[in-house]
């Protein structure tokens, strides 16, 4: 009995020591949820006792702050209920990458070198020096069962809300305002003539392509899943630059394939480009059209640059249409905790605070609280079911 008490005391002591000695917690995952998480972490009393010192890299546009769009973030402060200084390092690498990070113990990610944290926003600059570490926590736009990394199963996870997405088109030859799932599937194949979108017999000399995200993206999981293309089906996606020039994706003259942007923000900045007179270097023609899938925040960026929002299967995006299940392009937002995270550790503490603290930051448009939804779905390949 005395031994048991001693063990308990030792365990409690170690737990306290863990928080008192405040170390580093590593987080990765969904770029679509990045803004909400950023807001939660920087709200005093949610994760840290006060607004944490924040260092940001790789986001925003030239000459502007990265803010909540930074791909690399670092927060320093005292955890609520803790003591000492805890460093929370974040690399927003995409949902699929995040799930792999927490599921597979040997996986590591790149972070800002903690010895270089200066509390500044470095805009589009990359971190001057980086560190590497295994991941303890991640955010994702889909459940692990709809991920490419289905095993090892991550037992610590919480569904925290709904993340919304939009389809947009660039100012290309196709000028429509609605897209259907069949059209999405055809465009993802990489050989879809404009007639499939326009319904005009004369539109058979140019093509409609998808410019999208890499296989590490949860936005892509939801786009491919909801449209019936198949989460694991390989696409022929193209990429264009901000001048509307089709890009050589592997340096060997490949202009379409299983490629895509690691950042929705970077993708969004290309979608305002006019491609009506651009050379189609994949199928050979003058002029083509591009459609794309983005988070609501990134879609706003693209639309601001000239892209056009599309209704999906005839249904416009609105918070009400998502909540009632008539608009189909949305996913379930999750927080995951690696199986190696010890109960009572700093990472476990941060996990618990994020599970509770992030949903209140959902603005009801880019992300929606579960309690506000009137329908549910198990994942992107299932249809919404009204409550």
């Amino acid at each position, binding site marked *: 009995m005395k031994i048991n008490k001693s063990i308990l005391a030792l365990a409690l002591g170690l737990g306290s020591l863990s928080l008192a000695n405040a170390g580093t917690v590593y987080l990765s995952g969904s770029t679509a949820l990045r803004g909400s998480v950023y807001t939660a972490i920087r709200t005093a009393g949610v994760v840290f006792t006060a607004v944490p010192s924040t260092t940001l890299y790789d986001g925003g546009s030239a000459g502007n702050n990265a803010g909540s769009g930074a791909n690399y973030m670092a927060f320093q402060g005292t955890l609520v209920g803790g003591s000492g200084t805890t460093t929370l390092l974040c690399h927003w690498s995409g949902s699929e990458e995040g799930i792999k990070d927490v599921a597979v113990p040997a*996986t590591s990610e790149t972070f800002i070198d903690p010895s270089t944290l200066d509390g500044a926003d470095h805009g589009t600059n990359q971190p001057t020096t980086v560190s590497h570490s295994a991941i303890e926590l991640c955010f994702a736009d889909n459940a692990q069962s709809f991920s490419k990394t289905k095993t090892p199963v991550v037992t610590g996870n919480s569904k925290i809300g709904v993340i919304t997405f939009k389809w947009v088109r660039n100012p290309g030859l196709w000028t429509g305002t609605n897209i259907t799932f069949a059209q999405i599937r*055809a465009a993802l194949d*990489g050989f879809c*003539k404009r007639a499939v979108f326009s319904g005009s017999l004369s539109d058979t000399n140019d093509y409609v392509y998808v410019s999208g995200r890499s296989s590490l993206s949860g936005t892509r999981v939801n786009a491919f899943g909801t449209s019936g293309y198949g989460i*694991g089906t390989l696409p022929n996606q193209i990429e264009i630059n901000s001048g509307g020039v089709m890009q050589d994706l592997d340096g060997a003259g490949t202009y379409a394939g299983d490629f895509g942007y690691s950042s929705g923000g970077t993708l969004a900045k290309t979608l305002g480009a006019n491609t009506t007179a651009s050379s189609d270097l994949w199928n050979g023609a003058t002029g083509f059209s591009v459609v794309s899938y983005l988070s609501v925040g990134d879609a706003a960026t693209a639309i601001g640059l000239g892209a056009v929002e599309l209704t999906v299967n005839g249904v416009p995006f609105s918070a009400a249409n998502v909540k009632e299940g008539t608009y189909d392009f949305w996913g379930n937002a999750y927080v995951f905790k690696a199986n190696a995270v010890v109960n009572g550790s700093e990472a476990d503490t941060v996990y618990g605070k994020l599970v509770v603290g992030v949903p209140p930051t959902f603005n009801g448009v880019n992300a929606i609280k579960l309690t506000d939804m009137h329908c549910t779905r198990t994942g992107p390949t299932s249809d919404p079911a009204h409550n």
Partner: protein
Amino acid sequence: MKNIIKKSAMVVTAMVTAVSAGAFTYNGDLLVGFTKQSGSDVIYDIGPASALYEGKQWNLNSALSGFNLNTVYWGVIGDKNLAGTRAAWNTTVGLSVSSTAAWGKLDTATKSIYQNFTVSGTEGDLFSILASDDNSWNSQTIVGSLATQFHNVYGDPNVQGTTSASFYSEVANNSAPTQLSNFALDSGGVLTYGVVPEPTSAALLGLGSLVILFRRSSKN
């Protein structure tokens, strides 16, 4: 202790290798797939169509040890862009490929299967995959519900058991398919392309050649 650490390190290394090994870009090789519609499927790379010849064989006995060869479903598929001419090959289906867009759908399905190779994805490589996976042989060629899966965009290339299957090539211009030959699976798990010359026929052929050579040399 050192041994334990070494073993742990080896396990970690193996895990890293297994996870980080990336998918390979589909190279146009022909794939033969096997499924019992439960458990795991096996998919084997039999090389490019251009390397086929009558009598070519692949001994798949060990790879098929988990299958009842009398009931297994199997077939061959493949496609390639040959300098702008988009070609496809498959067993049993033999339907015209109407356009580049139609070929693209075949290619999407085939390369989605192929992405699961974790080694080089050249002739002789194989992988197994749960029959329930969207990109298994079973899902892609027989039962999958996705509009992008092989049997939905083209057809079911499978035959069942130790039998032969007609083998076709198609060009993506709506021309009629060409039957090239056939594949056959025997009870020993050997897959054969075309007809294997009978030993007696081969011997007679050899004897005939010798006679011709002898007569020519006699005339000289």
